[in-house]
C-alpha cells in the first residue's frame, strides 16, 4: 500500500528524542498522526495526540492504519507483535540491529494478522506533498518535490541522494519507498515495484539497490513485465567480497549477491543501470522519451 494523507498513523515510542523530533516533522508536513504509544506515559498527551499503553489500547480508542516504530532493537519484537495484533495494515519498522530470530517472529505475526511490514532498517515512506512516515527529509524541498517518479531504495541516505538528483533535474517524486537494509525485510524491492506499477501517479521508477541478497534479481524479473520505464543504480561495485558493508544485508558471500550479476539481471530485463547516481535523471529522460 502507498502511504496517503488520510492514513492514520500511530507512533510507537512517540515520546523519545527521535520519536518526538520526527513525529513533529511529520505533523508539520501534513501526516495524520492520531496517537502514540509509551506504556509509562499512557493517558497523557504528547505533540497534541493521546499516548496509549499499547497499540491494542490505541486501536480501541481510535482505529489506525499505520504503525511507525521508534523502538530500540531488543524491544522491537514485542512492539511489532503488539501493532500487528492491534490490526495495523502497515508497520514501518525503522529499527536497525533487531536480532534476526526476533525479526522472523515479527514476520510470522504480520502473516497472521495480514499486516504489511516495511523494513526492518528502513528510513520510511514519503509521498511528496502529502505525507511521510519515517526518518527521511521529506520537508527539504531541495530533496523531495511532488512528481511522477517512484523511488525504491534499500538505503535511506542513498535514496536521499537519488531523490535530490532527480529534484535538481526537475523530476519530482510520486513516492519514496524505503524497503530497508536488513536481509529479511517485509516488503521486497520487487513488491515495492509491483505497488508502484499499479500506482496511477507513478509514471516511472528508479530502483536503488545494493550488493548482497537477490532483491535486484527478483525485481528485474518483474521489471521485465512493466511498461513503465525503470532505471536503476546498485551501490557496492567497489566493495570487497566477504565484508558486511554497514547494512546487515549488504554482503557478497560465496558468489552470492555480487554487483555484476545484479547489473546483468537488470539490464537483461530492459532496466538501464547507472554507473553513478547523477546519471539517473538523464537515463530516465531517455526512457520516458522512448515510451512517449
Amino acid at each position: 500500500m502507498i502511504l496517503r494523507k488520510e492514513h492514520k498513523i500511530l507512533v510507537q515510542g512517540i515520546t523519545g528524542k527521535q520519536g518526538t523530533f520526527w513525529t513533529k516533522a511529520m505533523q508539520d508536513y501534513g501526516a495524520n498522526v492520531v496517537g502514540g504509544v509509551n506504556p509509562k506515559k499512557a493517558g497523557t498527551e504528547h505533540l497534541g495526540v493521546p499516548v496509549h499503553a499499547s497499540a491494542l489500547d490505541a486501536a480501541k480508542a481510535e482505529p489506525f492504519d499505520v504503525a511507525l516504530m521508534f523502538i530500540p532493537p531488543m524491544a522491537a519484537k514485542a512492539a511489532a507483535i503488539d501493532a500487528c495484533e492491534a490490526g495495523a495494515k502497515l508497520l514501518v519498522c525503522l529499527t536497525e540491529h533487531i536480532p534476526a530470530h526476533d525479526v522472523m517472529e515479527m514476520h510470522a505475526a504480520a502473516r497472521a494478522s495480514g499486516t504489511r511490514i516495511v523494513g526492518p532498517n528502513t528510513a520510511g515512506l514519503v509521498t511528496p506533498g502529502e505525507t511521510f512516515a519515517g526518518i527521511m527529509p521529506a520537508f527539504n524541498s531541495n530533496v523531495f518535490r511532488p512528481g511522477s517518479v517512484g523511488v525504491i531504495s534499500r538505503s535511506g541516505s542513498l535514496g536521499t541522494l537519488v531523490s535530490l538528483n532527480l529534484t535538481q533535474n526537475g523530476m519530482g517524486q510520486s513516492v519514496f519507498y524505503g524497503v530497508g537494509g536488513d536481509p529479511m525485510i517485509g516488503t521486497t524491492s520487487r513488491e515495492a515495484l509491483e505497488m508502484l506499477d499499479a500506482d496511477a501517479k507513478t509514471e516511472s521508477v528508479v530502483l536503488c539497490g545494493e550488493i548482497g541478497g537477490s532483491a535486484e534479481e527478483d525485481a528485474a524479473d518483474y521489471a521485465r513485465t512493466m511498461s513503465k520505464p525503470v532505471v536503476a543504480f546498485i551501490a557496492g561495485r567497489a566493495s570487497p567480497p566477504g565484508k558486511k558493508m554497514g547494512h546487515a544485508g549488504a554482503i557478497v558471500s560465496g558468489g552470492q549477491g555480487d554487483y555484476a550479476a545484479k547489473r546483468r539481471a537488470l539490464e537483461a530485463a530492459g532496466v538501464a543501470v547507472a554507473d553513478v547516481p547523477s546519471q539517473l535523471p538523464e537515463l530516465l529522460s531517455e526512457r520516458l522519451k522512448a515510451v512517449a
Partner: protein
Amino acid sequence: MNFEEYAAKPLLAKSGLAIPPARLVADSGAAFAAAQAIGPCVVKAQVPTGKRGKAGGIKLAATPDEAKAHAKAILGMEIGGFTVEKLLIEGQVPIARELYAAVLNDPKTRGPMVLFSTMGGMDVEEATEKDPTAMRRLPVDITKGLARDDALSLLDGLDLSGATDKIADALVALYKAYRKYDADLLEINPLVVTDNGNVVALDCKFVLDDSSAGRHQGLAEFAAAEPQTELEEAAQKAGLRYIELGGSVGVLANGAGLTMTTMDAVTHYGGEPANFLEVGGEAYTKAKDALSILLANPNLRSLLVNFCGAFARTDVMAEGVVNAWKDLDPKIPVFFTIHGTGEDEAIALVKKELGIEPFDLMDDAVRAAVAAAKEKAA
C-alpha cells in the same frame, strides 16, 4: 560472528546431538597426550573457513606418534588466509554414510529453513549444485518450531540405512540449538551414520547473528577473530564499521548505501577508495572518532566527506568533522558535499570554520578529491 568447530560442536552436544570425544590443543606435545587418551584420532585444523580437508588440514592418526607428526605439520599452515594455531584431536568414528544438515534464516520465506542432503561430505556444494533436488528444504513456522513429524516428512522416501528415526531426532535437536543460540546458520557437514547405526555430528559451522550477540555474552568471547587491521580494530572499539581498502582517497559518508555509492563514484572517476567508513544510523554523532581513524591511514592523499542527511543530521556530523579537523590539523586536502537534514547550518559551518566551500554536486567533489589524490601522489 563465526565459530570454529571446537567452539560450535559442544553447543550441539548440549542440545542432545552426539559428537565424538575431542580435545583442543595448541602444540604437538599436547596432541600426543590427547591422542593417548582418545585412541585412534583425527587431527583437525581449527580455522574459521571451509575446505580444511582439501587444504591438508585434516589428517587421520592411528597412534599418538602419528598425531604428533600431523600436529607439527598442520600447526602454522595457512588455510584460506588463516594461520592454524589450534587443533582439535578427535576420536575416529566408523563412517557408514555422510549426510548434510543445516538450519538457516531464509530471506525468501522470512523464517527458518531446514536443509538436508544425503550427499554430505567435502563436495556437498558441488554435488547439490549439479543436482539441486539432492538438497531437500523445509520452511519452518517459527511460532510452532520443528516437530519430529516435520523432520520425518523432510526425510520421506530417502534410503537412510535404517537410521531415519535417529536422523529425525538429530534434525529436531539441531533446530533447537539453532533457536537457542540465535544462529544465522547452524550446519552439520558431515552428519554421519556410523557402522553401528548411530548418528554423530562430525563437523559444525555456527554463525551467530551479530545483532543477538548481546544476549549470548558467554558465547561471543569464543567467536573466531575476524582478520582485522589495527585501524579496523580501533574503529570497532569506537563502535564504527571501518574497512581498509588500499586506495588513496579517504571516504567519510553517512549511511551504508551512500558510503558504498561514494566509493563507487571514486572508482568511476578514476580514483581508488582508501576505506569504507560510515557514520550514519546511530553512529552519526561519532564523526570525530571516525575522522581520527581515517587520518591514521598512511596511504591517504585526500579526503572526501559526503553527507546526505536523512536520520543523521548533517549539521551534527559536520560539527564533529570540523572540530576534529581543527584538532588534528591534517596536511591533506578535504572536499565536502552536503545535502539533506541540517544542510544549511552544516554548509555555513564548514565555510566559516575551515574556509572551504562544499560542492553542490557529489560528482564534482569526487572528481576534485580524486584529482588531488593523484597530484599528491605524483
